[in-house]
């Protein structure tokens, strides 16, 4: 568990500096933990695996969009656990099944198990991407899905590099927000 914390924390620190490979490893390790965590909690109250997958993705997006709130001098797992638990409570509140007293947990609960059996969530990102304004959609497609560098995208779209960055940043924000709103009815 402690080795886990140290390793994940160094991946997170690298990710915060812009190391995409480390960040990808971090997110995929955390996604397995999150999936097991949500499946365990939701199974107890008779919810489906799709719902657990939705929540896993929501927690990943929250971790991503709020990564600037992680204090690199503090342990990582309590921070991740707090976000995971917050998203769970928020979800239960929205779906009107108040599990008002979720038992007291330790941060260790989150990394107690892995679950790699990913299934599809109810979100359709490609569809939502199509609803974004042209410029945002194109820049996100090129930088995030095709993996081109900001400089390459800038020259291909006849935009300045800072324009590309702003457009990607705003587009991702809009995308995350629309995913948050479009929780599929169960």
């Amino acid at each position: 568990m402690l080795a886990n914390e140290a390793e994940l924390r160094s991946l997170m620190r690298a990710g915060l500096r812009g190391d995409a490979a480390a960040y990808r490893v971090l997110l995929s390790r955390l996604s397995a933990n999150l999936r097991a965590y949500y499946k365990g909690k939701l199974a107890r109250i008779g919810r489906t695996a799709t719902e657990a997958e939705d929540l896993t993705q929501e927690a990943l997006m929250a971790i991503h969009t709020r990564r600037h709130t992680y204090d690199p001098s503090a342990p990582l797992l309590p921070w991740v656990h707090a976000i995971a638990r917050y998203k769970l409570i928020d979800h239960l509140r929205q779906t009107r099944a108040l599990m008002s007293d979720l038992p007291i947990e330790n941060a260790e609960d989150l990394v107690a198990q892995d679950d790699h059996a990913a299934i599809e969530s109810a979100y359709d990102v490609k569809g939502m991407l199509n609803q974004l304004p042209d410029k945002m959609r194109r820049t996100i497609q090129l930088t995030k899905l095709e993996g081109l560098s900001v400089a390459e995208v800038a020259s291909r779209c006849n935009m300045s590099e800072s324009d590309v960055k702003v457009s990607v940043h705003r587009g991702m924000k809009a995308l995350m927000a629309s995913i948050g709103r479009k929780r599929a009815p169960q």
Partner: protein
Amino acid sequence: MRTDELIELLSTNVEPVDHRQTARSIHIAIAASIVVALGVVFITLGPRTDLISVGALIPALFKIAATAVLFIPASIFLIRLARPGGEYRTPVALIALPFITIMVLAVITLTSAPGSHWKETILSDEWLECVISIPLIAIVPFAVIAWAVRQMAPTDLARAGAFVGLVAGCVSAIGYAFHCADDSVPFFAVWYGGTIALCTLAGWKLGPKLLRW
């Protein structure tokens, strides 16, 4: 969407982030709200007229310092509570210490005075103005600080909200102390303490709605 597709999307060309930026925005929000509170007090109520005399300056400074003793730890705790998981490492009960100290001081002052003076010590001319002013002046600081705290994604909304209320109440009380001409310790303890507690309670109630992210 599959989760590994989402991870691809999030991690490809990930931008570096500055983790200090969010704490900075809370600092700025608190500083700005002090300026607002002082501005409101000086423009609408006006500073107390005898502020230049030593006899008035010392009790005024006492009120400001005593509020600051509450304000400073409250701000430090708020900055911790504002982050996800901050509630795990914040001993919030410690914040009661400065409160209790002032209450003890007030009781000592009261017991050293004859019982017939108690009523006029506490219910002096200014109590109503104090009770109305401090919560009113706290509204803008509350909104500004709540906005900054929300950016930091607190995960215990009621507790974070209570501390937003506490800090806003303290800021407001510090501003009001420049106007308030009642210098007795029991008055300060009851009405400043009471209104700050009220702001804290309001924040605790409003937190889950206002701070949700």
